[in-house]
């Protein structure tokens, strides 16, 4: 082993201990996240604060109450857009919504909703399909800061052009401007779109199931998890979905490498839309 390879091994040990410290100090469990990703993010924080090593970061984490929030913000990648990946929303309209329309009432969960753009996009879509009044929407994230932005639903004016273009590409029927009010340098999402939406903190790693969902959106969250943790979270989704419920992942995520792939049918391979197979409860039989 070269000296540098030995240094690398030691550094990996330091990072494992730092993640353990984060877990014990804050309850946030990043130990199963993708390690190349975690290392890059922690390295940013280390360099920005001129901390000499990850070991020193442990000390800082323990004794500086504000430092954990800086780590949390660095580990929560929250770039998002309204109608991000317009083709995905088209596919939802075409292959998911017709099934949802057969229910009198539906439950929708956005796991890892970031600042809410995905939630409001889906809200608009459900509105246009005449489904909003029949839907209860849960929107969750681990990052309290982004959840607060999601609740407010105020976005920079500059982003509206992109959002409008996405909305049109996604097959929107109306004028996108009907869904917000413009201020001086920002836009506010129409209050009506916040009805039936419950924003709350939920950690996919450590918190439990959300029961009987008809659709779960978890887009661009699983890429930050290691493969074992992905599997664990996919199991959580499986247990949270009703029979025939839909799971929508990000365009570059898939169930291909998951141990639970067989529990789902592929609805749209390109847009990563899956459907939970109907589980038949074995009928109770008498003693053999």
């Amino acid at each position, binding site marked *: 082993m070269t000296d540098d390879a030995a240094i690398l091994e030691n550094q990996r040990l330091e990072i494992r201990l730092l993640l353990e410290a984060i877990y014990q100090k804050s309850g946030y469990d990043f130990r199963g996240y993708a390690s190349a990703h975690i290392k890059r993010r922690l390295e940013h924080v280390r360099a920005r604060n001129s901390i000499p090593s990850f070991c020193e970061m442990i000390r800082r984490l323990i004794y500086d109450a504000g430092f954990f929030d800086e780590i949390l913000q660095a580990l929560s990648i929250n770039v998002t857009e309204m109608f991000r990946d317009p083709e995905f929303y088209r596919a939802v309209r075409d292959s998911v919504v017709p099934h949802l329309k057969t229910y009198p009432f539906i439950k929708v969960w956005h796991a890892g909703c970031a600042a809410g753009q995905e939630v409001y996009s889906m809200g608009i879509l459900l509105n246009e399909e005449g489904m909003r009044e029949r839907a209860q929407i849960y929107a969750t994230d681990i990052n309290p800061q982004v959840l607060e932005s999601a609740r407010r639903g105020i976005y920079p004016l500059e982003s509206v052009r992109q959002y409008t273009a996405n909305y049109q590409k996604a097959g929107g029927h109306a004028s996108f401007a009907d869904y917000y009010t413009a201020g001086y340098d920002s836009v506010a999402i129409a209050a009506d779109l916040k009805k039936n939406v419950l924003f709350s903190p939920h950690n996919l790693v450590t918190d439990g199931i959300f029961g009987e969902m008809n659709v779960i959106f978890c887009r661009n969250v699983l890429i930050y998890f290691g493969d074992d943790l992905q599997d664990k979270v996919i199991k959580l989704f499986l247990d949270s979905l009703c029979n025939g419920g839909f799971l929508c992942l990000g365009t570059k995520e898939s169930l291909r*490498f998951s141990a639970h792939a067989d529990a789902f049918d592929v609805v749209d391979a390109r847009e990563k839309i899956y459907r939970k197979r109907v589980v038949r409860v074995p009928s109770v039989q008498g003693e053999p």
Partner: protein
Amino acid sequence: MRGIAIGASAGGLEAVGRVLEALPADFPAVVIVVQHIAPHANDTLARRFQRHCQLPVREAEDKEPLLPGIVFIAPADFHLMVEPELRFSLSREERVNYSRPSIDVLMETAAEAFCSDLTGVILTGASVDGAAGLVAIKRLGGRTIVQSPETAEVDIMPRAAIAACAVDAVLELAEIGPFLARLGFEDPC
């Protein structure tokens, strides 16, 4: 398993194709390519490179295990990383050197996963991306190759790499594919 990480930017569509066409069908290393491309370009890159290449070429998927004899291409608008257990990870974190995917991000993570079993190759481009990546590869005992600036459609990226790193070889574009083809068959350390 040996790894080969190739980074290219402006002029790369042509140059990467030239390198890939020299690799034989029984090539035993895994090849990973970051070609800078517009964010909304879809999976056309893999199809395009496949035309020149005897090995299967495909877009890398999240958590996909790296396999020898396959050419993996970074998807547009995602960073591509190699995890220590030799699986890919994707990320939408901010651009690095104005780029996503970034060559540095691929090479730095691949260097840590492969150590001395990695070869990094920098081709044509108008960027400094890849220079820090080559330094990381070299530091962990891997090999570094740069296209000679004279044969590069845009010489900025090769020059930046050569300035940053004491590279092992500066080769003309036509030599790089055959060089990798031989190197792939050497025993991994």
